[in-house]
């Protein structure tokens, strides 16, 4: 039988200061670790929420984002002839042909940043029902008017209702603020598709074309239609949600890899802290170890007891770190999305897998930090240990 857990737990409580310092060290590392994963997950969650699972987005093949995609007017017309596009109650196709450009705006706190401007068709509210006007009104398609995502409205100068911003040689009035349920659209400015095409002299060439599928189960047929029609072979339809999910991959992976690399370096400090604490625990309890060994407890029982103590420290560190990291969910940050080269606002997001990963990371730190001291405790010579080492 193992050394009773109450021995482990009470011994752990006796060294309050050193234990608290070690727990703090591990908690800090877990906090950073969880924060990084929450940030990467936040980016993914935001961009995944941007797309709908029954919308299909068409881009030019080999384009790595909306900005670099071009769909000419003839192709637009061909796509419109496909039978898979859903129609509204008036029989009008639910489709949005969107020029996407990036402009430069001044940040309230100073500096400049790129912002996506998306031209949308009238049917966009049917295509993306998550879009809700928060303030003001929808833009007038006949005028140089824009509505702004609430993240942009909060962060940039001149992006508030009543203001005007200048791009493409013209002034554009801000007439409304919309919200999109925390999706990437919150970080965009929207205007009428034709107004933007005209302002940027793009003729009829839009960047992307998104339509709602009449029946999403027909997606494979739709894909086949693109692959077999010579006029569409240069274009690729994708489920909108999947498209945005792929768009998030690079940035999320970059944050994750860089963050984990930094966290692993931090963790070395926490592991050394745990090791020092556990070595001192072994040194202070040498006689107790000798006594328990003389009573018949095996080396393995002693090893388990000290390792459990190290793991207990790391688990408490994980709980503390995660507790504080969970408050990050209330924060929204923004960064440059590498795929669109534009501002992307997102919130830190916690998921069960992040909680599990953080616990595993903490346990690994506790195990690595506690293993050598525990081995030392288990290998102590009984006679020497009874003499106090």
């Amino acid at each position, binding site marked *: 039988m193992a050394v*009773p857990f109450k021995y482990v737990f009470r*011994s752990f409580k006796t060294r309050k200061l050193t234990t608290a310092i070690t727990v703090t060290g591990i908690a800090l590392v877990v906090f950073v670790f969880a924060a990084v994963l929450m940030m990467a997950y936040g980016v993914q969650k935001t961009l995944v929420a941007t797309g709908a699972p029954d919308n299909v987005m068409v881009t030019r093949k080999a384009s790595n984002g909306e900005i670099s995609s071009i769909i000419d007017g003839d192709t637009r017309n061909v796509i419109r002839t496909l039978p898979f596009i859903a129609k509204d109650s008036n029989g009008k196709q639910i489709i949005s042909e969107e020029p996407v450009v990036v402009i430069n705006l001044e940040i309230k706190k100073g500096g400049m940043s790129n912002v996506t401007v998306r031209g949308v068709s009238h049917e966009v509210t049917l295509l993306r029902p998550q879009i809700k006007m928060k303030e003001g009104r929808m833009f007038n398609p006949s005028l140089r008017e824009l509505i702004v995502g609430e993240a942009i409205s909060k962060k940039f100068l001149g992006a508030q209702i009543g203001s005007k911003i200048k791009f493409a040689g013209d002034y554009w009035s801000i007439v409304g603020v919309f919200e999109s349920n925390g999706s990437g659209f919150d970080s965009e400015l929207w205007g009428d598709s034709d107004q933007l095409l005209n302002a940027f002299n793009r003729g009829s060439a839009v960047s992307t074309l998104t339509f709602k599928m009449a029946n999403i189960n027909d997606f494979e047929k739709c894909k086949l239609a693109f692959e077999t029609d010579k006029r569409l072979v240069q274009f690729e339809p994708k489920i909108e949600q999947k498209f945005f999910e792929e768009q998030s991959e690079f940035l999320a992976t970059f944050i994750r890899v860089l963050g984990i690399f930094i966290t692993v370096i931090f963790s070395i400090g926490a592991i050394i802290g745990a090791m020092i604490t556990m070595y001192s625990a072994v040194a202070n309890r040498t006689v107790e170890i*000798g006594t328990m060994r*003389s*009573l*018949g407890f095996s080396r393995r029982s002693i090893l388990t007891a000290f390792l459990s103590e190290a793991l207990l420290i790391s688990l408490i560190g994980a709980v503390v770190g995660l507790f504080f990291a969970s408050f990050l969910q209330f924060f929204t940050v923004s960064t440059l999305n590498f795929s669109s080269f534009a501002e992307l606002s997102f919130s830190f997001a916690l998921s069960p897998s992040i909680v599990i990963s953080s616990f595993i990371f903490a346990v690994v730190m506790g195990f690595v930090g506690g293993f050598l001291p525990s081995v030392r405790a288990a290998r102590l010579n*009984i006679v020497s240990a009874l003499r106090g080492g």
Partner: protein
Amino acid sequence: MSAIIQVKNVSKSYWRNSLEIPVLHDLTLDVTEGEFLVLMGPSGSGKTTLLNLIAGIDRPSKGELNVAGTDIAKLNESGLAKWRSASVGFVFQFYNLIPVLTAFENVELPLLLTKLSKSERKKHVENVLNIVGLGDRIYHYPKQLSGGQEQRVAIARAIVTDPVILVADEPTGDLDKTSAQEILTLMERLNKEFKKTIVMVTHDPHAAEKATRLLHLEKGDLV
């Protein structure tokens, strides 16, 4: 009476760097069941080393060591640990109680290595704590007990598994005269009333008076 402890031509040396330090020389000794053997001798004479060998917490460099029917010199590490838990009870000079455990929990420790149920363990622990006169202190921590009481808890811990032999290394060495006398009386009672075979190392001549046999060690030899 049969010999419960047979020490045959046992030698023990320690190595310090590359220097061999002989402690026991070719020592032979039999202890019969129910005996209260006291080992005396000056510091460094090897009495504690002999006690440790008999108790299975140290191994002889040479010779045979048969305790309670087991050749303990031939047991491996885990076998020896199991043997200790079943066959030997220890009483140390400085009690060696676990400070974070209560008297009850300290006494219960060796029983955790047995297959007894929780209720059986409780019964055993309360029984031995009553034997040592501490039935009313079972939930006290070691720091809440006097030296004599701590040693009585240690004795309760040593006898709770009903071991065949009891080894005590200067059990009165850290106690005042009255407490020491109480402990010696208790040891004598364990020997006479509960028929425990006891091997005790001591410097105390009063302690030696309780012995059924007294042996002197000097420079690793019985004299």
